[in-house]
């Protein structure tokens, strides 16, 4: 379901498949285990392989954002699909985490339309 990559100050979590209520709990447990153990300054949630996300994914992002705040780390969201961006926009998640599209390396907080 997920793959972790640790490099320098960043822990990248490659999520995959459908991020709904059914799958969120398992992902949350795995991510939190790694984050609590390593306390990386930056955690990246990479959505390139996520085919669907509903508000369960927002809950997951909000929870990880709070976890990062506990020790002053930063949360980033990379490569969300247009459907996922739309859910992020509605939830105002762009205020909790930096959203980037890695294909051009630029921040795309307003690239929802």
């Amino acid at each position, binding site marked *: 379901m997920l793959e972790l990559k640790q490099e320098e100050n960043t822990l990248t979590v490659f999520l995959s498949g*459908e991020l709904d209520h*059914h799958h969120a709990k398992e992902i949350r447990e795995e991510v939190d285990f790694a984050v609590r153990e390593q306390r990386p300054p930056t955690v990246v949630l990479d959505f390139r392989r996520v085919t*669907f*996300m509903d*508000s369960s994914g*927002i809950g997951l992002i909000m*929870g990880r954002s709070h976890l990062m705040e506990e020790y002053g780390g930063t949360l980033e969201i990379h490569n969300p699909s247009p*459907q996922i961006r*739309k*859910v992020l926009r509605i939830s105002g998640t762009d205020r909790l985490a930096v959203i980037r599209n890695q294909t051009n390396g630029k921040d795309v907080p307003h690239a929802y339309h």
Partner: protein
Amino acid sequence: MHTINELKCSFPARSQNESFARTMVCAFAAQLDPTVEELADLRTAVSEAVTNSIVHAYRGMDDGIIAITVRLLPDSVIYVRITDKGCGIADIPKAMQPLYSSAPAEERAGLGFTVMESFTDKLSVRSTVGKGTTVTMRKRMRHESDPARD
């Protein structure tokens, strides 16, 4: 309103059926030749409604049933009705407030109804405490060839 086509289905309120439920509704809606975005909106809205029934309506119950009716109405409108016989919602306006959740400890964002409202054209919620909840949503799918399309 005249129903052109209809699908009815019911299934146990288990989280592994969330994916099946939203996929089924979208498979039915596909006969209207909607855009990728319209179908994604419908998929997300249905997922929210079904998840609410599983997480909230049937909390602590393992024998709940969720019933879905999908109708194709004139003017390319998809109508979806999702019904549970769970605990019901005492205060619907409160439940529909963005970011309100009765289960924040489980990392429910409190955005289910907000997503349903934003991703469909019309949402209605009827509920009786102790009897259950019915959510109905309507969404117009505009064909690729529709010149009035945005």
